[in-house]
């Protein structure tokens, strides 16, 4: 496997993680998963009434896709809620992986980073492989690593906003401070160019949902994001040139016709 991504000792041959929510239909979700060539999809748990088969049929669709699942604790507002949800997810989905969200603000869905670190410490101690949804704060990142996280997932912008990277300096600084930790940009990307941009910064992967599921053609957009991620990764490996403030001719100046000043 060439240029594989390793997350908690699992090699993954796709750098695009895909959310499964808000697609026009289950069939389009299944097609988008294939078009994105993703190997990891995020899933959730929600209340269900007796006699409903909705959860069962969704789970069957995901299993048929062959993708590994990353359950989330979306919407949890306290450490207790997040930890209990993680326990429930481990039993239902049969994985120790958990995308840990502890939401601190309803308008921005910004994570409560204090609760996040506390919940991460508890869950790592219980054998979970924690993927923390965080801001791009360096100190929070340090605390999460101290808590035992081996992957970090900073946001680019608020969940579902599609704004792209709000703080490129912060993401660049995070990458520079933690060169060997897998870093996945989670949330806020709206277009394949945004995904390419963060991959060019050296991020290891991106996690998307709304940008694909709410596109006019989610399947085509899934394909476009896959291309964007691949292009950004290839560009990072190819070491982009350093930007300059002034022009530098690309065509050689020496030998130009009509150059009266030349000897």
């Amino acid at each position, binding site marked *: 496997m060439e240029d594989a991504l390793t997350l908690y000792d699992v090699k993954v041959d796709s750098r695009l993680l895909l959310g499964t929510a808000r697609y026009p239909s289950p069939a389009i979700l299944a097609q988008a998963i294939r078009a994105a060539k993703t190997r990891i999809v995020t899933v959730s748990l*929600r209340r269900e009434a007796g006699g409903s088969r909705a*959860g069962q049929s969704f789970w069957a669709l995901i299993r048929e896709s062959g993708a590994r699942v990353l359950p989330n604790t979306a919407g949890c507002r306290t450490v207790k809620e997040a930890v209990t949800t993680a326990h429930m997810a481990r039993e239902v989905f049969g994985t120790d992986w958990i995308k840990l969200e502890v939401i601190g603000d309803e308008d921005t869905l910004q994570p409560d980073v204090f609760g996040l670190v506390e919940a991460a410490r508890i869950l790592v101690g219980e054998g979970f492989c924690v993927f923390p949804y965080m801001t791009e704060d360096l100190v929070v990142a340090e605390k999460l690593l101290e808590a035992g996280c081996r992957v970090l997932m900073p946001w680019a912008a608020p969940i579902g906003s599609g704004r792209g990277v709000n703080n490129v300096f912060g993401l660049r600084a995070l990458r520079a401070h933690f060169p060997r930790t897998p870093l996945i940009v989670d949330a806020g990307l709206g277009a394949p160019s945004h995904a390419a941009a963060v991959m060019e910064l050296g991020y290891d992967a991106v996690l998307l949902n709304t940008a694909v599921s709410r596109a006019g053609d989610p399947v085509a957009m899934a394909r476009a994001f896959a291309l964007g991620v691949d292009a950004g990764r290839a560009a990072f490996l190819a070491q982009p040139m350093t930007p300059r403030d002034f022009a530098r001719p690309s065509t050689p100046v020496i030998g130009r016709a009509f150059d009266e000043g030349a000897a």
Partner: protein
Amino acid sequence: MRIRVNGDVRDVAARTLAALLEELEYGDQLVATALNRDFVRAKDRVETPLSENDSVEIVAPKQGG
């Protein structure tokens, strides 16, 4: 007995969590459970008694981002 199930107040006859799932016709649905915000493993439901005013959560796989 009056308890809260997924946020709704209900009168139920069940005295254990396992019996509650049966009474509410969950059958073989793939669900996870919590009692008063604490996770209860599937294998422990039979021996998990319910009390008046308990709060039960019953969740299943769902699309998520």
